[in-house]
């Protein structure tokens, strides 16, 4: 193995990442932990770029650096008696934990070395590249997500929907913010539309370049977060009925496209020849809206106020 300047860059990135993770996890000040965790997400996005994974870099830049941080910062406001401090480690568990860690670290190392050195990893990649032309898109990651392993993505959307339903069932939304000052107001009015435009661009470009429904959905969700920070109330969201349709829309579009294939004597989710590109774009558009609204409602923290008063719908002051 020849050591080059690239390896110096890699080592510096890795050390910095570990340093940030360590300081985010240690210490008893939770606010400090959350801010450092946001820096950790930013750095992770740079590492995905370094490892030639621009699709992940885009998603991490939107989610790791922005959305998770915003969610955690809101959660800092829920003060609990035992939780104002991060708390001291429980001493009893310490020894057992260290032993467990050693065991897990050994199995992790074994699994990793096997995965990297064996040839089985190459076979799937070969399959993916070999069939790229029939997939309807030219970005291999989008092809894997929406075509070769579409089942996974369909179920992933179901997981997302389940998590959102859980959040909606757990309680009502947080109080909205006050009207912002001039500066924050300007930031919100400028950044939110830009986020929407870039989301549309990423959705479109995802067919042939890095991007796609997940990145675009995360950016739209970031737009919702930004508007929320600027004092948006849940009344300004679409009508409750429309929200329900949007939330389920990603899965619905996916299922419809899947069943369409069965009318052509194909397997479920096996797109008819020539239609793959269009179907993928339609599924991705619906999935983007579902993902955006799911994550947006997650930032609201619960079911929007007014959702439970079905009778008074539309008459809220």
């Amino acid at each position, binding site marked *: 193995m020849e050591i080059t300047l690239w390896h110096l860059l890699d080592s510096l990135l890795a050390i910095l990442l570990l340093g940030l993770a360590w300081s985010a996890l240690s210490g008893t000040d939770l606010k400090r932990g959350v801010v450092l965790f946001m820096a950790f997400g930013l750095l992770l996005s740079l590492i995905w770029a370094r490892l030639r994974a621009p699709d992940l870099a885009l998603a991490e830049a939107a989610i790791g650096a922005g959305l998770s941080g915003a969610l955690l910062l809101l959660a800092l406001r829920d003060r609990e008696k035992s939780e104002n401090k991060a708390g001291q480690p429980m001493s009893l568990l310490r020894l057992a934990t260290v032993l467990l860690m050693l065991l897990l670290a050994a199995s992790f190392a074994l699994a990793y070395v096997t995965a990297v050195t064996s040839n089985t990893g190459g076979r799937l990649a070969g399959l993916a590249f070999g069939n790229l032309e029939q997939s309807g898109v030219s970005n291999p990651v989008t092809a894997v997500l929406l075509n070769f392993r579409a089942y996974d993505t369909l179920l992933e959307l179901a997981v997302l929907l389940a998590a959102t339903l859980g959040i909606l069932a757990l309680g009502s939304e947080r109080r909205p913010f006050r009207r912002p000052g001039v500066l924050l107001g300007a930031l919100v009015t400028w950044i939110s539309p830009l986020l929407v435009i870039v989301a549309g661009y990423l959705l479109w470009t995802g067919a042939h370049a890095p991007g796609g429904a997940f990145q675009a959905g995360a950016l739209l969700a970031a737009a919702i977060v930004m508007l929320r*920070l600027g004092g948006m109330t849940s009344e300004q969201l679409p009508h409750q009925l429309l929200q329900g349709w949007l939330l389920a829309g990603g899965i619905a579009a996916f299922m419809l496209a899947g069943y369409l294939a069965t009318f052509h004597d194909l397997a479920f989710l096996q797109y008819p020849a020539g239609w793959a590109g269009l179907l993928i774009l339609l599924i991705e558009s619906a999935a983007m809206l579902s993902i955006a609204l799911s994550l947006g409602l997650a930032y609201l923290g619960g079911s929007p106020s007014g959702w439970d008063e079905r009778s008074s719908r539309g008459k809220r002051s």
Partner: protein
Amino acid sequence: MIDMDTLLLTAAVLLLVTLITGLVRALIGPSLQDRMLSIQLLGTGGVALLILLGLLLKIEALVDTALVLALLAAVAAAALTRRETPHD
């Protein structure tokens, strides 16, 4: 005369070293705002590093990533500095 890639790579390494230097401030604090500044630093410096990596690895989409990172650094700053609502 050294070639372009070596020059860009050296620049990327040096840039990362300056980022690490700045991030020491995030680790030692002392105030919360010092840590917020480190996010600003990683935002701007991260955009710079992404542009360099895009040139080096010949991935043009990293410029799109830089754009997204710049946008989200603004969202992060807004989320970080938003104070509590009156009756929350």
